[in-house]
């Protein structure tokens, strides 16, 4: 398989900055919403993707979530975690969509081919496909959130209402599964 240089993961968007942006959004500042979107859309999309297993559906929900954040930013209380607050909204909206749709819509080849995702490399696509297709619901949500939101395992546990030990064991199990599948594919 191709070697890839490991880069340090970027730190999660700074909590104080997110709080400042949320305060701006609460005041109706559209530039603040634009900055917040740039900073948090990956994490929100990861939450939606983890629940819905379909990138197109997750894109729709991600857009809805930021509209909801625009409406609800005034209710955010600064003593909390701004990222967790936004991800709670994302989780609720994705779950509602899932409930109303009745089931997830697994992605077929054609869905991947038509997905608007400029810059998605074949390796990234393969990794994401593996995560969407071969992990359990909880494993997928934990792995995607950990990769994309910058939240710690403990915070993910609080968000998903799972004990830390469960989050850790599922995370490691999921990573093993993904590695086995990807390295098997590459071999």
């Amino acid at each position, binding site marked *: 398989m191709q070697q890839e240089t490991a880069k340090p993961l970027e730190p999660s968007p700074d909590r104080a900055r997110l709080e400042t942006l949320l305060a701006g959004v609460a005041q109706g500042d559209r530039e603040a919403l634009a900055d917040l979107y740039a900073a948090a859309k990956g994490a929100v999309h990861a939450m939606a993707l983890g629940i819905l297993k379909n990138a197109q559906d997750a894109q729709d929900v991600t857009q*809805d979530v930021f509209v909801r954040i625009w409406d609800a930013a005034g209710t955010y209380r600064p003593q909390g975690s701004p990222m967790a607050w936004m991800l709670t909204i994302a989780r609720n909206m994705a779950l509602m969509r899932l409930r109303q749709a009745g089931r997830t819509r697994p992605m077929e080849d054609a869905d991947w081919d038509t997905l608007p995702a400029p810059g998605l490399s074949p390796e990234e696509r393969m990794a994401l496909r593996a995560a969407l297709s071969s992990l359990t619901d909880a494993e997928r949500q934990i792995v995607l959130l950990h990769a994309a939101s910058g939240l710690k395992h403990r915070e993910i546990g609080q968000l998903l209402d799972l004990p830390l030990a469960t989050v850790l064991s599922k995370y490691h199990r999921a990573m093993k599964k993904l590695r086995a599948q990807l390295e098997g594919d590459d071999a």
Partner: protein
Amino acid sequence: MTDEELELRLKNAVEHTAPDDLDAILARCGTGKGNVIDMKETAKKRKHWTKGLVAACLAALLIVGGGGGLFYQQAYAVASVISLDVNPSIELTVNKSEKVLSCKGLNEEGITVLADMGGGADLKGAKLDVAVNAIVGALVRNGYLDNLDSAILISVEDSDADRGARLQQELVASVDGVLQTAENSASVLSQSVAADKALDSRAQQNNISTGKAYLVDQIVAMNGALDFNALAALSVEELRDLIQIGAPDMPIGQDAALEAVLDYAGLGRDQVPYYDVDPELDEPTPYYDVELVIDGREQDYGVHAFTGEVLQGVKTPSVMNPGPALPQADTPALTEAEAAAIALADAGVAGDTPALSKQDWDDGALHWDVEFRDETSEYDYEIDAATGAILSSQKEALPMAATQAPASGGDIGEDAALAAALDHAGLTQDQVSRLKCQKDFDDGRTEYEVEFKSGGYEYEYTIDAATGAILDHERDFDD
């Protein structure tokens, strides 16, 4: 590949597949801050509302106009007026070549929907079907029309009855095509209407289209006690439902339904980060389904559509279905025994009946899957692991043969079941740990569930107790 490398790949994949549609979001955030009522999501298909009383009422509106036509030779002369109504009301005028002369939002929501099309100006000169497709696409993107009961009304006003009818037909087909592509479930209603200055004026006063005014007028004709202006404020979905149920009374409207629930729950609107109001006026008890999300928990209320009374236990089964319940924060998860006790009690089966329970994570919620049987039936329960709520229950009568004790010759015995599993895995008993073998009854059949661990893997087998056949097997990483 290290964990860090794999995570980086996933992180990049998520970011590259995340949407890049800030403009669309900003367009949706233009107005109505803090006061958004969503009409979202779809579960069942209900295309083309073309039957029953509604269709009859719409057909009754088909009025063949006469006169006019003086200015048709001129490219800028209005040949047809087309309106699209959901909650947003949008009106287009077209010339005889079906090119758009003007497009405007008639109410605030209509203006918002057109925000990313220059307020409608960008559509000027476009072919009518292209413009309508663009508008319907914007409606869908803005969250209208994907509610399972939502409805769009297309009205065509044209003094040339034939052309009006053809346009109506083409637009319905075109809109339906867009909605199908969007996997949408909204109903498409359509009508041809005749110019009526009095109705135009009433429509203008209420910021609705003449087409929607026709629909309102029809309801007033059914029940003269209802107020035109109040009805004009309702969505097309509510109006359609009202016609269907014979317009017995005036619905309180979505805003009032939300306020009723907030009063009932003792909450201010700013305490509820997410809510959703869905009219269900065509149910036996007409009501508004109001969903609030408070502290990460979803709460569902019904509000009587005419009295505003908050209902309890009047919801339809589909509404009662809790779906993926959100795990309750700070509540310890149920133990296996507690989950089994809830299921046994509900089934009215002796509390000491052996039950097979396993945890499962489905649709985003953790639950216990509890199975047991008594002399005549097999039961399957799903119990919410956080709240103890019964998410689903199933009772299935056992076939006569299965209700009798298995004949001695029909049971290979635990040792043979174990041997069959080990043989399949290519392992011997001294190579495995955590060995479990349990007799179970499923699908009216006696089975052995065999589990063990070896070499970093977990193995699970289901063996037919009568034949020793391997019915199911799974090998998975042992964490």
